[in-house]
């Protein structure tokens, strides 16, 4: 090997992208002025507000890349990118629809039945239907192929039994994509015999229990499936293809702006507050953070462009997430030098509120969606070391 070159092509930003950005921006500024939401950190995970998601749907900002016949607008991936980054930096409460817009919708589009596409996608795009991810379990985290949730064939469909853990936002979702074992477990072929199902969460036998996280938010859940019947057409994609499907889904999931902008609201506030007295050392710290954010954004947009060209930049996507999530944490650690983080109460000080909430949430950044150790493993494999 002579050299290892990463290429990040330029995104093609035309006037329609700029216009969309302006529209989203002014909508959000208006909403903040009207007090519809209070800007929060890690808003794509911690901010659940179905009403707000519905508003975004009405504005046509969910599922924008999907075909018009399924409620989409046939816009480019870059249009979607711009919407999501504007929502993130505004700290808008977007968690309710985030997963469905980002990955469940595209998964249904690629693998779902025609019936699913016609009945579910338009509702997702309207901001009325939300989907949770049912991957992790009490005994399966990084080693996802070890899931124990089982689906048995029964007349007219399948019966699912098992427990899914940590599913974000499930309490406000109508559906969950559940990864279950459908074939016998074979230690040599661990990735075979897994299937994804789209399970309505109001099915008999499903219970969803909220779990309070260390920041005080009840955002993830434990879900029990006790002999839950689903019809044949609840199978997402092909029986036994579940592993392949989730790995390609994860590539989409890893390189987006939510992997480096989760704490940007806090940085934004800090700079605004510090601008008037900015001097040498503080300027260096702030400048160094801003440079890294800009570079990561160029990288993340480059991965989006590669995906748009039909390539599968798994390594690049894993790198964005590894570098980006560490940066999100680093930002807060570095701001502490100028704004110590001590109290739970912020007494109306928005910056203190954002900083303490960021700190209390930041252990999750490098875990969710595949830990950084797992990501580095993907990079190492891509470089031929595994």
């Amino acid at each position: 090997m002579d050299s290892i070159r990463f290429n990040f092509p330029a995104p093609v930003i035309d006037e329609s992208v700029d216009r969309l950005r302006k529209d989203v921006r002014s909508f959000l500024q208006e909403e903040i002025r009207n007090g519809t939401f209070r800007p929060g950190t890690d808003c794509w995970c911690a901010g659940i507000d179905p009403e707000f998601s519905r508003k975004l749907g009405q504005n046509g900002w969910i599922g924008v890349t999907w075909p018009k016949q399924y409620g989409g607008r046939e816009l480019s991936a870059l249009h979607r990118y711009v919407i999501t980054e504007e929502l993130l930096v505004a700290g808008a409460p977007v968690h309710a629809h985030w997963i469905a817009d980002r990955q469940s919708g595209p998964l249904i589009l690629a693998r779902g039945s025609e019936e699913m596409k016609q009945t579910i996608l338009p509702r997702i795009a309207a901001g009325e239907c939300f989907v949770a991810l049912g991957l992790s379990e009490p005994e399966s985290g990084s080693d996802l192929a070890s899931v124990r949730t089982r689906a048995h064939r029964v007349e007219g469909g399948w019966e699912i039994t098992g427990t899914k853990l940590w599913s974000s936002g499930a309490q406000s979702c109508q559906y969950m994509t559940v990864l279950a074992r459908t074939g016998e477990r074979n230690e040599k072929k661990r990735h075979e015999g897994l299937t994804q199902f789209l399970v309505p969460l109001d099915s008999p036998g499903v219970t969803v229990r909220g779990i309070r996280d260390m920041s005080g938010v009840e955002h993830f859940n434990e879900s029990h499936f006790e002999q839950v019947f689903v019809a044949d057409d609840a199978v997402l994609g092909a029986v036994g293809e579940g592993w392949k499907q989730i790995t390609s889904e994860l590539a989409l999931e890893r390189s987006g702006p939510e992997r480096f902008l989760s704490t940007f609201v806090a940085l934004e506030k800090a700079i605004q507050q510090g601008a008037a007295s900015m001097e040498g050392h503080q300027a260096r710290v702030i400048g160094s953070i801003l440079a890294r954010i800009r570079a990561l954004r160029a990288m993340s947009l480059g991965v989006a462009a590669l995906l748009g060209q039909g390539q599968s930049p798994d390594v690049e996507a894993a790198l964005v997430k590894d570098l980006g999530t560490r940066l999100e944490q680093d930002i807060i650690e570095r701001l502490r030098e100028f704004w110590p983080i001590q109290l739970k109460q912020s007494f109306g000080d928005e910056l203190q509120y954002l900083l303490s909430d960021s700190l209390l949430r930041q252990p999750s950044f490098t875990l969710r969606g595949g830990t950084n150790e797992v990501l580095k493993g993907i990079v190492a494999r891509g470089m031929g070391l595994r």
Partner: protein
Amino acid sequence: MEQTDQLILDTAYRLFSDHCGAEVVNQAEIGEPPKTLCDAVMAAGLPLAWVPEKAGGVGGSLALGFNLIRQAASFAVPVPLVDTMIANLVLAESGLEMADTWAALVFDGGQLPVVDNGTVTGVVNNAPGVVSGSLLVVPVSDRGLVRVATFAFDNLAIEECESLAGESRARVTLEGASPVQLSPVVDGMTEDGLRQFCALARASQIAGAFEKITALTVGYVKERQQFGRPLGKFQAIQHKVADIAGESALANAAIEQAIRMLSEHPEPFSGDNVAFLPVATAKVVTSEGAATVSRLAHQSHGAMGFSFEYPLQQYSRRIWSWREEYGSEFYWSERIGMSMANDICHGRAEGGQVWDIVSR
């Protein structure tokens, strides 16, 4: 990039592969000068990459030139190619005549010497690429405006030294020196514009070196066996390699963005606000990454990487010197921070938002 650009890069790649092996680089520092390489680089016209065709050059785009610079760095090319490319471009921009020898831009990112009544006075402490016989191209300040003066090597007081990597650096002292040529004020060229342009060249070099360091490290840990298996099978080593790859990818993303911006800029030496942020970003990210990349690569290589014979040191020493030149990460990040603060205080960001500037 255009097709002809790619052709030139391919030619250069073959040329470097043939004539710039690790041994040539080491010998250039402690033994024989790389004569074959020098001749080949000259014969291929690479130092003229940026010179317009009508001035006898290759007429390559800015993107071509920066990519060539990155590529040359991934071979640690021990001839003043980059220096001559930049010097020639500055000559072309200022309407002066090119030399058919090596040339050097006598500029280290510090204050420009001053021209007064046709003579030049000032000291440039760390001018890169000054070699015996080269044409010296000195940007000078005429009451704050930039003009360009040229001098012959023999007519100036030059103290030759070496960078950490043995690349030529020189302290050039001008005391009422009379130039061979002196341009009028160059439109669209400022001291900060020169600084930014050279900073982006160094950033591109660092990115090129990162690529090579990544390749060397991956190659080494696949080959070297300990405890009965290749080092690369150990997760601790895999994670180091992944971190090197991350910094390398980030560096590339940053310089490519800056190169795209500068390519579309009508005045690449203006140093205006449009150019500033992408270029500063590129230099901060590459310079910051140099510590991580060199540390992890050396750790993965064990003692072998510490030997002179093994090529890793050619790249780690280079990035240590390049990261300081034309502004370190500390210099440029302070400027980014201050410029952001000023923009916010003076209402130059839409809605008073930092994000508005970051996302431009």
